[in-house]
């Protein structure tokens, strides 16, 4: 509903050819013409073409058309380079993510045999979660693994699209199973070729029996014959989306597998998106009785999201990061709408794309590792653009406040000085992101070690940290408070984790000696008293029953006195750890001194435009159409439909006829009398004119009613004569 009416953007792009009845199609350039395929030159040409492709830049010329060709290309190349690196890392995470499930399932398949499951079909129920988009990847990985690594036999992945009927399913199954491993045993192939007559001897020999009567191509006996010649191989059938399968086809299939089980060693993998109970409800009991096995859980998608997020946004390898509002949008959409990693990655790519597409300064990101050539690349226009960036202005104002007037003058007047400053400062800006990521990692680890109950993943802390909420929020305070109360075992565990996960000198250097000391203390205590865990004096959780203020005091005193010498020393050390953690976190999350706002050129390092994402990934077609029809003046912006002071205008004869019909339609009930509608329409369109042409009005009426039907607002009904049924209500 917030869709702004488009302004005159489209007027410039008006192409007269679009409205021409016919025109001559001319090719753009020579190289696009399809060349005749010649085998000798084919490869060479392909590489040439690829080179041309690579150089072909799809980005527009920015800076009011003054951007030079070389920077344009540089922008495109930078985009390609950065996204390629990011995509590679993301893919590696996605590939490694399912490894545990893959291992479990492949182990299951490896030692599955009907004898172990009471003569039933060995079945692995793979609970893959409701994110359907990831199932294909998972099953592809499974099939690859079983086919290439375990080599237990052919794998057939069946999807509901293949399974329109039992016959087609079997046909696909047999074809896939028998053709798959032709590469595996070559000798046999050759042996068959000697006797064979057809061009594909293996297939034809499978299709024929000993009497050479041909079998039908959906007969499982083909597979049976194949299994006889490939002893020891299992036929793994993976049903990717069991929910979407027609339950009759599925139960027929399973029954068939069951009856052939003594001749073909089937193993079933069933992908379940909802729950095992729903799967059980779907099939008849007699079919369920045929299966026996185990269930395997795929790891939660949140884990995967956390890994990808940490890698792409908070790690030190990331170059372009997301800003708070985009981040919020993406995470919210993930949680509330999609729960799909793939869409998240897609949105991330879109952020990269739109950043480099529309921001001429994004070329700076290409010089992040080596700012040497940056000065030469930045043209006068670029420098001017830099001066217009809000963070630059803030930087200059800061200088002005610090009375460095000469500096300010140079920044505003001297282009070369700006180039120099930018080249110097970009590393600092980048480090801001890296440090933030490290601080978040520290906080996350700390929180997970102290507060086991409410674990907040890094991706939720990130947006808060950027917008400065984290400093005032309870997350840090809770962590610091529980840090004080930690026993030595827990604290050592925490320190160990921190040393491993966040190897940054700012935090490890002061903590290292403390860790050593605590270790020593614990050893001492163990040697003297046999006590293994030291408790902090701040820890009052052990005695929860504190009735009155007096008893509280008494107990406190008691506790203090019950502390051993080592405990007291330990408490002092805890205090030191606390002080280090506190100062570290305050420095990093203090928004007034260390906030994003103060980072020079943060607009380039943090992509934070929410509207392109929401317009592209979550468009609102329905409310847009409704608005277009009910308030056409928003879009038309014509004088006749708009009242002078911008107030509600209601229905007017000057509005488009479809819009008039729609507004009348909104006022009516579920069934609309056509004649009433027509007379209302006529009175609106005729207005005050006495002699409006009724035939024209009727033609307009018919046309707009047809448009309404086309848009799905009305339909014919048999409930009442001369009436149409209303199908859509506004504002849903």
């Amino acid at each position, binding site marked *: 509903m917030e869709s702004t009416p488009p302004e005159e953007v489209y007027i410039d792009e008006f192409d007269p050819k679009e409205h021409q009845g016919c025109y001559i199609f001319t090719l753009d350039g020579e190289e696009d013409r399809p060349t005749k395929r010649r085998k000798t030159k084919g490869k060479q040409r392909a590489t040439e073409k690829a080179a041309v492709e690579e150089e072909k830049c799809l980005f527009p010329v920015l800076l009011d058309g003054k951007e030079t060709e070389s920077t344009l290309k540089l922008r495109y190349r930078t985009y390609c380079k950065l996204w390629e690196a990011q995509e590679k890392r993301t893919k590696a995470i996605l590939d490694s993510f399912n490894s545990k499930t893959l291992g479990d399932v492949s182990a299951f398949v490896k030692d599955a045999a009907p004898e172990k499951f009471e003569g039933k079909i060995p079945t692995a129920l793979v609970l893959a979660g409701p994110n359907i988009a990831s199932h294909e990847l998972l099953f592809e990985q499974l099939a690859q693994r079983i086919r290439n690594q375990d080599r237990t036999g052919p794998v057939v992945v069946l999807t509901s699209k293949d399974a329109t009927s039992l016959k087609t399913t079997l046909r696909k199954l047999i074809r896939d199973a028998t053709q798959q491993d032709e590469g595996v045993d070559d000798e046999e192939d050759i042996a068959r070729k000697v006797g064979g007559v057809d061009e594909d001897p293996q297939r034809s020999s499978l299709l024929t*029996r000993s009497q050479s*009567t041909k079998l039908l191509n959906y007969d499982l006996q083909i597979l049976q014959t194949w299994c006889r010649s490939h002893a020891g191989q299992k036929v793994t059938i993976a049903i990717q989306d069991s929910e979407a399968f027609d339950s009759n086809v599925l139960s027929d299939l399973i029954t068939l597998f069951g009856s052939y089980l003594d001749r073909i060693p089937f193993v079933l993998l069933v992908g379940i998106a909802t729950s095992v109970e729903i799967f059980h409800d779907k099939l008849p009991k007699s079919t369920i009785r045929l299966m*026996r096995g185990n269930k395997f859980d795929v790891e939660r998608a949140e884990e995967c999201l956390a890994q990808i997020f940490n890698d792409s946004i908070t790690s030190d390898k990331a170059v372009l990061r997301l800003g708070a509002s985009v981040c919020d949008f993406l995470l919210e959409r993930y949680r509330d709408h999609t*729960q799909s990693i793939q869409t998240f990655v897609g949105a991330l790519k879109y952020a990269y794309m739109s950043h480099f597409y529309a921001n001429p300064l994004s070329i700076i990101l290409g010089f992040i590792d080596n700012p040497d050539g940056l000065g030469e690349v930045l043209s006068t226009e670029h420098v001017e653009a830099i001066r217009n960036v809000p963070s630059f202005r803030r930087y200059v104002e800061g200088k002005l406040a610090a009375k460095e007037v000469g500096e300010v003058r140079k920044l505003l007047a001297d282009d070369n000085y700006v180039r120099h400053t930018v080249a110097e400062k970009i590393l600092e800006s980048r480090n801001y992101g890296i440090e933030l990521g490290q601080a978040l990692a520290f906080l996350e680890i700390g929180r997970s070690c102290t507060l086991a109950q409410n674990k907040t993943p890094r991706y939720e802390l990130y947006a808060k940290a950027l917008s400065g909420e984290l400093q005032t929020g309870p997350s840090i305070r809770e962590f610091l408070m529980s840090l004080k109360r930690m026993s030595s075992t827990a604290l050592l565990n925490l320190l160990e984790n921190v040393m491993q996960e966040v190897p940054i000198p700012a935090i490890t250097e002061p903590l290292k000696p403390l860790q050593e000391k605590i270790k020593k203390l614990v050893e001492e205590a163990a040697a003297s008293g046999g006590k293994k865990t030291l408790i902090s004096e701040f820890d009052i959780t052990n005695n929860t029953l504190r009735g009155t203020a007096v008893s509280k005091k008494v107990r406190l005193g008691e506790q203090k006195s019950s502390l051993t010498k080592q405990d007291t020393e330990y408490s002092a050390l805890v205090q030191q750890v606390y002080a280090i953690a506190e100062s570290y976190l305050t420095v990093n999350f203090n928004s007034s001194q260390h906030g994003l706002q103060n980072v020079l050129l943060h607009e380039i390092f943090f992509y934070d435009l929410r509207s392109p994402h929401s317009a592209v990934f979550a468009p609102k077609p329905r409310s847009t159409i409704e608005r277009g029809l009910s308030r056409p003046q928003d879009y038309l912006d014509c004088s006749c439909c708009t009242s002078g002071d911008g107030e509600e205008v209601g229905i007017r004869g000057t509005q488009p006829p479809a819009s008039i019909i729609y507004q009348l339609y909104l006022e009516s009930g579920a069934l609309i009398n056509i004649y009433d509608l027509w007379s209302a329409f006529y009175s609106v369109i005729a207005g005050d004119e006495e002699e409006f042409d009724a035939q024209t009005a009727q033609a307009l009426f018919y046309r707009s009613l047809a448009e309404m039907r086309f848009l799905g607002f009305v339909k014919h009904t048999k409930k009442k004569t001369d009436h149409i049924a209303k199908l859509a209500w506004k504002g849903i």
Partner: protein
Amino acid sequence: MTDVMLPEELLTALNERFPCRAPQIRRLAALVGTDETPSPPALVLHGLEATGKTTILRAFLDRTEASYTWVACHECVTVRQLVERISAGVTESVGGGDDAGRAGDVCALGVRLSVALSGAERKHFLVLDRVDRTREGSSVLFAALGRLGEMIPSLTVIFILSVPRPRFLSSAEPPHIHFAPYTKEESIKVLSKYVRRIPFQDIEEYTEEDAKEELYVWQKFCGTVWDSLAKGTARGVVQFRAIVDDMWEPFVKPIAEGKYGTRNYSSLYLLHKDMFRRETDVVDMVVPAGAGEKAATKSESTGNPPCVHDLPYYSKFLLCAAYLASYNPARQDATFFMKSNDFGRKKRRGGTTGPTKRTAKNRKIHRRLLGPQAFPLERLQAIFAAILPHRLSSSADIQTQIATLTSLRLLTKASATDVLEASTKWRVNAGWDYIRHIARSVKFDIEDFVAE
């Protein structure tokens, strides 16, 4: 009896192997007989699941060394496949026969079989196992198959099916042999052939005495299982055996450990009383209940919360809305979902007056028992907007989620029209328990909105 024409020891051996099936075996002996005796053109063996039709017939034919062709009809997907299998099978087992052509339909099959069997000296039996489970099978097909034996003198067609219909073969009724389901005593007798051992811990040697004791406990145990569980749920001997197998080991564990003797069965029963009340062994599941629990506790002990795959937040509300749209009558929507009406809280009826005359007059079936009703998508979206705790401007994401729910078959299309058609009806495909669970996870009190 004069109908016994086979050597007596063969029948004794068969009776030994298949207890409680003496009359059926005798009838088979009479009708199948030896090569010298005539056989009817068709023969029907019928009886419920797990009554020994297939096994006994196969054993019988093997023992008498009859020439037969076995076709498993439930493995055939189409009639054509069935017919080709019959043709190929008969040709193969009779030996010889020319390879020319294939039998595409029943008529061609008749011709091919008569050619193949024309030179045969012996009787040939064509066994059609589970013929009533042939896919695409029609009564014409069965009638034609039944006539094959009449056309070809040396052929006898044996049908095996579960429940015969009158005039199944559309001809003069062929002889039927009924395999009655086993009674309790018979079941126990059958199971006594597969006595499971008691895994004694300290056993030196296995004596006659032990075997006798085992048989005693086994039979007693089978009787108890039958009375408590299997009588109502698993009358087939195979299922019965599966239950007994599952429960045997835990049941005799005290005996194996030497805590109980074999003869005080009743105290052993009292010890395991709970076992016969539980349903876990009776309910069919792919993953045995015990194994699943073990896995769950394992994951808990390692610190990970048990894996629960969640639907997205709004998908859950959509599903609740779909449930409400399916189970609430449309005319009550205003009472439930109008914002003005105290935000849809159900009006509590005054409990003092008791049932009024009107409700007594037209007592209705509970709506939940009637199954889900179809609703248009517009209604789903309206209810969805009404039950959400906050306002949400509808975006394409909502439509995507509806599509996802459809491909998960939690929502199904109820009319044959196109998906995009506004008048297409939909239906929820999830039970009350599942919906209630989902509603609780988003803190939505669905009970307040369900019409009674």
